[in-house]
């Protein structure tokens, strides 16, 4: 229904299978030899970047160059002992986005015990507001992305009881729009990324 632009002409001899080995190699080597600049400059999202790479490797039944213990050690150092939240990178501030990524990574390798999971639960519960919404961190930005992060994390930790789920549902529902889509806050325009988060939220709520 949207006007699609065709800006690529495919050659005849292109591969028709996914070259998994090449993808595995790329991810495993990322930040080791090539791309050290991009890798270094994106430390502000490191833990989430790790999740994207590691989950892709896991789906391709491959392992990273680092050991599970090394990965867990790094994540452990990213947990803030005061708030319980986890940051993107050592020394940076905790945020719900990276807290989810951290928990997801540890679930892949089955070593949640590397972090203080009760601390994570406390952190997420502390971010819920009276109207059911969640802020991303203590500085107060509200977004349905964070509602998704909250239930996704608590679902993995089997601690959905820690938040007011009815209020949370109420808030996300209030973000539904005239076109059936969802936005980041009530009355925000529908956006595919937020629709993903809101539908994902409802899936976790089931």
């Amino acid at each position, binding site marked *: 229904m949207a006007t699609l632009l065709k800006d690529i002409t495919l050659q005849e001899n292109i591969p028709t299978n996914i070259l998994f080995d090449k993808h595995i190699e790329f991810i495993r080597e990322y930040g080791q030899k090539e791309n*050290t600049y991009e890798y270094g*400059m994106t430390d*502000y999202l490191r833990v989430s970047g790790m999740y994207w790479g590691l989950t892709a490797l896991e789906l391709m039944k491959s392992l990273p160059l680092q050991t599970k213990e090394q990965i867990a050690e790094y994540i452990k150092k990213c947990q803030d002992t005061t708030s319980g939240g986890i940051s993107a990178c050592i020394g940076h501030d905790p945020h719900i986005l990276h807290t989810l990524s951290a928990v997801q990574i540890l679930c892949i390798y089955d070593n949640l015990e590397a972090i203080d999971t009760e601390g994570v639960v406390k952190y997420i519960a502390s971010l819920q507001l009276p109207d059911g919404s969640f802020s991303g961190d203590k*500085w107060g930005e509200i*977004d349905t992305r964070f509602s998704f992060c909250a239930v996704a994390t608590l679902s993995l930790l089997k601690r959905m009881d820690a938040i007011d789920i009815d209020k949370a549902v109420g808030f996300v529902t209030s973000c539904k729009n*005239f076109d059936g889509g969802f936005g*980041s*806050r009530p009355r*925000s325009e529908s*956006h595919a990324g937020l629709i993903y988060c809101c539908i994902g939220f409802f899936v976790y709520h089931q």
Partner: protein
Amino acid sequence: MHGRFKVRTTEEQKAIKHKEQQKKLAAYHAGVQQILSSRKEDTYDPISLDICSQLLTLNPDIYTLWNYRKEVILIKIEQRPLWLISPKDPSCRLLFLTHPRNIDRSIQQAVSRDLALELFGECYGKDGDEGEEKLIKFLENEFRLTEQCLIANPKSYGSWHHRYWVLLRHPKPNWENEFNLCNKYLTMDDRNLHVWDYRRLIINKISVTLVDELKFSTERLNANFSNYSSWHYRSTLRELDEESVTTELNLVQNAVFTDPFDSSGWFYLRWVLSNPAVTKERREELLDAFGAAGRDRTRLQMLFWIIMAKCWLTGSLVLNDKDYVDKRVEYYKQLAKLDPMRKGQYEDYLKIAEEKLKKIGDQSS
């Protein structure tokens, strides 16, 4: 990245670039390290704050750096000099309060909060003119920084949030100014969700009537019907009743006939038609209008939307009217041909419509 050609460079060029990048990387890490190690509870390092501004201008997504700035602002707010006023005698306001650890010795009557409470009993603080001025000057600098960052990247969550956060703590926030800023950004990109969201926050703080907002919305749409954000905004303004539903139907009918190739008007039409206040007569009128327009089979994309609209219209007409269910079966078959990517969806609807048709057939036999 999308749409970027891979430029092949010589080994030499590669080496130079690599060296430059390593320098930038080292500077970035050193800068962040300096800032993070300077974080203290009740003082801040102005040099670190300056480095922070530079780094954020280059990359406003480094969220920890925005957090650091907020901490500094809170220190500034906490440490500003205040008048202490006794509720028992409001004219008595000769005492300054400064942060106990930061007493300005040049202010002769500076006292600590504890001493003030001892002398006055309960009292409250009020910004002295000087203190307020200094704070405002400091916060204006924050606005300048966010504006710089937003010009470079108008879609950074961090920049928008910081600006709003500062406004909430500004002694004399100029909400009208912010409102105008939104309109300026909408002129540059009227699909920027961040700007629309920010505008919504500002509107809560100033008094804007529904009439104003409808006028604004109508102006935007008249300037450009092909604007999903404007239609979306309009949908959030009010619940539609009999009167407003007519206004909206007229507006959007005009839009889809003027610019039938843009999907946003059609989505809005679907929403308006879902309102029970739209009369049967009006639906039949529209059905006729679309019927006439649909006879031009050269404009396939418009035909697609017309058939979709006919589905919406006939779906909400009285369903035991066998004629219309019949037509919808045809419509869905046509849609599946016109839009094969979504064939599955139309076949789902077709199944439902055919079942209804069968039920009607069974009932009449």
